[in-house]
């Protein structure tokens, strides 16, 4: 087992956000987590990555059977857990090219198109398009040689052409290299390209549903919406194994 989250309760801004999350990811596995806005998906991603803003009040996160709740973000990254941010913040005066040199464990720039090389000379996350932000995130993630990547809304703000390209790169550089992934997505666009082995649904801070058939889940959500999920007779607050 690569990642094992057991009955995780998390508080942020004086509010309980995650209410007993259970999640397991095997080495090399591709997992998708769907859920409506405000369901706690990003908080889960940030908590796994070690954002000190979120406090674990119950349960725990295990990585290679080792509890990592008290590890700072940088140590988790060094263990191989890397987060692709949904809205990465601006870092003034630091060029992406220079930043990659600082953080990189391996050199990987080969998927950039020639016209995209300008991105390397731009300030980190400053005045760049949604697509460029995702490419920037992907470059950073790959340069960190991850073992588990959490993509938080990698499909937001991308047109279908860019999404396809990003998905292809992820498939080639991450999934086919047996790196485990957790795709967090609101609209489920990205998972159509990446075909996860397990798909989960989170509502109100709890994972209420899971299936190996991502198409079935996407179809149900498309037909009934997440509101219906809450009333699903098969949903459960019980921890699943």
């Amino acid at each position: 087992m690569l990642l094992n989250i057991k009955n995780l309760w998390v508080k942020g801004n004086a509010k309980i956000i995650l209410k007993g999350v259970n999640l397991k990811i095997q080495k090399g596995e591709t997992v998708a987590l769907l859920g409506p806005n405000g369901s706690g998906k990003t908080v889960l991603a940030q908590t796994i990555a070690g954002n000190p803003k979120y406090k674990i009040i119950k349960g725990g996160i295990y990585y290679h059977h080792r509890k990592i709740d008290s590890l700072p973000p940088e140590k988790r990254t060094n263990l191989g857990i890397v987060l692709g941010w949904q809205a990465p913040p601006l870092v003034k005066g630091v060029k992406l090219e220079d930043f990659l040199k600082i953080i990189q464990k391996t050199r990987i720039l080969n998927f950039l198109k020639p016209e995209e090389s300008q991105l390397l000379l731009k300030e980190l996350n400053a005045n760049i398009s949604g697509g460029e932000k995702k490419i920037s995130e992907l470059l950073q993630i790959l340069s960190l040689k991850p073992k588990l990547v959490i993509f938080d809304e990698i499909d937001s703000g991308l047109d279908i052409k860019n999404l396809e390209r990003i998905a292809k790169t992820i498939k080639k550089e991450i999934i086919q290299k047996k790196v485990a992934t957790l795709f967090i997505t609101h609209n489920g666009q990205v998972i159509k390209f990446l075909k996860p082995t397990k798909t989960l649904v989170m509502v109100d801070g709890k994972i209420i549903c899971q299936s190996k058939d991502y198409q079935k889940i996407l179809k149900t959500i498309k037909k009934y919406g997440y509101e219906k999920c809450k009333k699903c007779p098969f949903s459960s607050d019980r921890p699943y194994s």
Partner: protein
Amino acid sequence: MKNVKNVHFLQIDHIVKKISKVEGVEILTSPEAYKKISWTRKFFSEKPKEGYFIWVKKQVDFPLLTCFSLNTYKAQQNLENLLIIEKGLKIKSNVICNALKENLCASHKAKGKIVLKEGAKLQYFHSHWWGPKEIVESDYEFYLGKDSQLIYNYKNTHSSKNLFFRTFIEAEKNSDLNLNINLLGRNTKVKFEEVLKLKGENSRGVIRLRLVADKHSKIEGISKIFALNKSTGHLDCQGLLIDKDSKISLIPNLVCENKKAQLTHEASIGKISEEELTYLRTRGLTEKQAIDLIVSGFLTKWT
């Protein structure tokens, strides 16, 4: 001292170690200039004791490098410098003031006048690098002649125990100023004052301040822009507080005396964003490395 062979004027404590000969440029000590060149006297407040006089009469295509260093316990430099750039010349000048050892408890006081004659262009890079126990006072005046242009970058990433610096700029018709001040204070008290006088028609000036206060530092400053003619001036100040015991206080003062002039101002002072810090930490940087990167990015943005 690195690159000592390229230095055109080098003084350590009170001793002038080197004055280079440069064709078309007269380089003397200030006392010598005061004695030999009578017109220089109007620029000195009194008979100077030490410092440089550089008179650029012909174009030189390399930066003129001057360096003042402190190397002796309790040494006290008291400098008066004068730099004159003749009409239409395009010059780069690098000025380094530093302490060669830590804990010297020495002082460096420098007064300078820089005169750009009509159409002259000067890029003036002023770098301070001090030990934690020095006391530093820097008082520079720039006179920008008609159609002249000055880019003045002041950088201080190793501040002294106490630092006072004043910069005065007087801009004549069609002259252009770009003043960038980058200051990182650690265990320091800094007081500064900028005064930009837009005296001539169509003169322009931008003052950018990037101030970082860390480890119990106090940075206080006042920036004044006076528009006496049809002109434009802009003040842009950004401050970053690293620890809870530091303080940055800035007073902008825009005085417009001409209805065709335009003066603008923007300022923000705050602490490092937690989100930015966490982001960098999720890229494998420790908290300290992340703070150092944020600070260096913040300070180097305009240089």
